[in-house]
């Protein structure tokens, strides 16, 4: 139970390739059900205590940044779908916002509202996956069946109705959205939101205040706001430390300045706080969807753009609040049809690197609880 609180330079414990002189070496992954993809964590333990942990990534590296240099701007949207594959809508959104900012394209109001609705639905769906799989990590099976198998499926059905795809949407386009919502879609979303309020209370009963779950997660994997910021942590993980930070609030994009919502905050930044913050965030997302449905008006969904366009030379950076944190795209354009260089500021990548400090000093049994609670997607870590 040492502190992960003080800000220190990462200690000089290089990647262990030899068994340590004292204690034992454990290789967690790359194929392990609780690593949520292909991640390896090389852990050395002394008895039950973790003495060092080094995440080993790159198993899912697909060179998205290099691929982007060879494709035209609209063709890159499909590449962004494959970064954080549990939240493809927000990836599309962040990329399109950056290109639109560089071209100074005005977006029709209806498209902005549709973006908010699908973006928040995506946040709910993504958090549902987290609730389900985190339950599995600590030994509860029901939340997985309920949150992942029931509610998330409903959201994917709504997306399928909207754009035909269930996972990689390519729905948000440069200048607006691919197509208007089909007839009756808004009613379906309203019905789902109404129903979802009850389901969130159900998650609270199943997990949040379940004594076994609380024992596994409360006071485990503590991190302070100061450490979290220094290591680049963002999103729900940072808010769980009690720090008020949200791109939707600090640097509003789209029409978020018109929306009223709270920022759920944790108290001490332990695993339970990270979980509870995400459950509360589902409620706030539902509020935002309701407001957007109230305010949305019929109209155009796509800006008038030429079929073949060029982005003016220069550079641009835009970030949004994705379900996993602060997602940004930094694009350098030389005026040609494809970007000269594109860099993706992936929230999971930065959230994961703090693991080497967070795991130190905790028991082996807590490793999975801590790793699961920071909610990573390896598609985004490796890009």
């Amino acid at each position, binding site marked *: 139970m040492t502190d992960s609180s003080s*800000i*220190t*330079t*990462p*200690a*000089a414990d*290089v*990647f262990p390739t030899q068994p340590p002189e004292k204690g034992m070496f454990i290789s967690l992954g790359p194929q392990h059900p609780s690593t949520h993809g292909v991640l390896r964590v090389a852990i050395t333990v002394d008895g039950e205590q973790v003495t060092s942990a080094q995440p080993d*990534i*790159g198993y899912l*590296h697909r*060179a998205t*940044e*290099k691929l982007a240099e060879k494709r035209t701007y609209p063709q890159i949207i499909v590449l962004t779908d494959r970064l954080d594959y549990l939240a493809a809508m927000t990836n599309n959104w962040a990329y399109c916002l950056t290109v639109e*900012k*560089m*071209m*100074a394209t005005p977006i029709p109001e209806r498209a902005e509202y549709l973006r908010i609705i699908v973006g928040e639905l995506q946040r709910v769906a993504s958090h549902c996956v987290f609730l389900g799989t985190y339950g599995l990590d600590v030994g509860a099976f029901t939340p997985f069946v309920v949150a992942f198998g029931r509610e998330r499926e409903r959201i994917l059905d709504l997306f399928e109705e909207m754009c035909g795809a269930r996972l990689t949407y390519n729905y948000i386009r440069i200048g607006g959205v691919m197509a208007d919502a089909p007839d009756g879609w808004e009613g379906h979303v309203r019905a789902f939101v109404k129903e979802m309020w009850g389901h969130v209370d159900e998650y609270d009963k199943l997990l949040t205040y379940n004594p076994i779950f609380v024992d596994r997660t409360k006071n485990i994997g503590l991190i302070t706001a*100061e450490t979290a*910021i*220094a*290591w*680049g942590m963002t999103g729900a993980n940072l808010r769980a430390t009690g*720090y008020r*930070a949200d791109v939707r609030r*600090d*640097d509003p994009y789209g029409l978020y300045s018109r929306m009223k919502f709270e920022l759920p905050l944790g108290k001490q930044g332990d695993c339970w706080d990270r979980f509870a913050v995400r459950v509360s965030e589902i409620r706030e997302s539902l509020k935002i969807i309701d407001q957007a449905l109230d305010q949305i008006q019929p109209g155009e969904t796509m800006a008038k753009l030429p079929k073949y366009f060029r*982005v*003016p*030379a*220069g*550079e*641009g*950076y835009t*970030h949004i609040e994705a379900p996993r944190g*602060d997602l*940004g795209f*930094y694009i*350098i*354009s030389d005026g040609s049809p494809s970007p*000269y*260089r594109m*860099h993706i*500021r992936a929230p999971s*990548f*930065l959230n994961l*690197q*703090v693991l080497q*400090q967070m795991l130190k000093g905790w028991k082996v049994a807590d490793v999975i609880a801590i790793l699961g609670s920071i909610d990573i997607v390896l598609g985004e870590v*490796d*890009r």
Partner: protein
Amino acid sequence: MTPPELLAAVQARFSNVMEIPKSAVQTRGAELYLSVPPASILQVCQFLRSDPPLSFNSLSFLTSIDWKTHFEVVYYLTSTLHKHNLVLKAKLENRMAPELPSVTTVWPAADWQEREEFDLMGIRFTGHYNLRRLLLPDDWEGHPLRKDYVAKPDRYD
């Protein structure tokens, strides 16, 4: 702080830090862009982080660009306290051996980001405690994000 105030605060301490002016034909964000000599990047970053009115406590991202004649390392800094942003750019003229000091002692967030740039762009960050390849296998040859990188066909091509 507004960009002119930021510029004044930095230049009062470091006279060799220059603003990169926005050219009329190029698109760019509203942030202040500063050009920093690579040798003094560590001192500038330490100052930016520790000076109370500036307190850039977060390195939002770090990346690099291959301009064919030289490399450029980009630091995007954010202060979560004062909500201001700053972009630092360091130009590395020596294309054969691009090298500059690591900022992991200022922001631990630079740890993996510097390793990624070392891996994919081949820039050495001196003083990094564990500068090894991050995403690619250890025995990989070359740095794929460089513009002159030629992919070797493997058995899948």
